[in-house]
């Protein structure tokens, strides 16, 4: 994401926080196709994804005033809301107890984000694909399935034919390896 686009989205979110409907419409136009793709990737059902997308934008409208203090880049904040909402729907569908709303993390005030932080994030994104390709196929596949399809440990265990604890310790190590690689 270019700095210009980042600034534009930040401005639209700030104006939305002030109740500016035009800015909210513009934010929707600029980001809804991407967020729809995120919820669709997790839910794999068009009508449910459409309904979830509506929930997501209602939350964005209501939560925009908390954006400024959470220190996330605008697109990450939007994607996180979309992803968490879709995962809640997915878990509710399987009538499993809902997982923790990781969204809570985005409501915690951050120390002032610096321009350097933004640059580091941009570099990390470029590294992400490269680093995933350095993991074993099964590990990279598991990370993608968890993030993009909302797979749970139980799903991974069923897929790999291994106990949940084994899968968990294996995925944790993959994630740590990914972080080390991306941060280099």
């Amino acid at each position, binding site marked *: 994401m270019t700095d210009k686009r980042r600034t534009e989205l930040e401005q639209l979110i700030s104006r939305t926080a002030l109740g500016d*409907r035009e800015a909210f419409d513009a934010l929707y136009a600029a980001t809804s196709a991407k967020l729809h793709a995120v919820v669709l990737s997790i839910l794999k059902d068009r009508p449910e994804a459409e309904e979830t997308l509506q929930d997501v934008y209602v939350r964005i409208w209501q939560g925009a005033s908390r954006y400024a203090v959470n220190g996330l*880049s605008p*697109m990450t904040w939007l994607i996180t809301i979309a*992803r*968490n909402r879709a995962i809640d729907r997915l878990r509710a569908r399987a009538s499993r107890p809902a997982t923790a709303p990781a969204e809570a*993390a985005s409501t915690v005030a951050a120390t002032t984000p610096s321009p350097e932080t933004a640059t580091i994030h941009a570099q990390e994104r470029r590294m992400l694909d490269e680093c995933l390709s350095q993991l074993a196929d099964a590990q990279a596949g598991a990370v993608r399935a968890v993030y993009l399809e909302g797979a749970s440990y139980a799903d991974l265990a069923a897929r790999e034919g291994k106990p949940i604890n084994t899968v968990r310790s294996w995925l944790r190590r993959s994630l740590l390896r990914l972080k080390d690689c991306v941060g280099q």
Partner: protein
Amino acid sequence: MTEDTPLSDTETDEALAAELALGLLDGAEAEEAVARLSTDPAFAGQVREWQERLAGLAEGLTPVMAPARARQYIRERLGHAESPLASDPAEGTPWWRGPIGVIGGFFAAAAIAFVLFSPEDRTTPPSQPGYRAELAAEDGAMAVEAILRGREMRIAMQSGAPDEGRDWEVWWLAEGADPVSLGVLPREGDMTMMLPEGLEPSSDARIALSDEPEGGSPTGQATGPVIAVAELTDM
């Protein structure tokens, strides 16, 4: 770090932050981790770092346009707009049927007559670059027309219809980019949409229709056979 050595405390914390960001925790463990967010800023920071780090995966997804009605529903839920049928048509007499309506109607008719019969040509709209695509199946079983003016696109079904339990999905194809779904074609009539950001009208772009399960491709990528592809041509 080998597969056998247990994780250090620092590593365990880092892994927990990742799991929380990913939504992998549940039960008491999840509650504890969420509670920790408000008391442990360093941990909250780690969770945010994971959200940033992994968002790149979502940014790589092919955008999928949501149907226009989704936006209308959001407006209604937030009280930003009344639905088109929000007022009860049976309630009271609409103004145009009352006595004022008759007078208003007279002036409206006069105004229309004036425009219609006025010697000057007042009807030329400001010209906007326009494109057109004519999508037709090889066997002639279906035809769909897409007209693009500025960034507004209208797609109309002219003949044919998808099979029962199937829908036709509209795709935007641009050189060197993944196809972008513009939504599912209504079974009757037409649809109008604004092109999403990142799609630029040009004669290099093409429109395609694919045959998908009802409601559209469940994955956001075309799954069914492509039934027609057409280039945008200047109007």
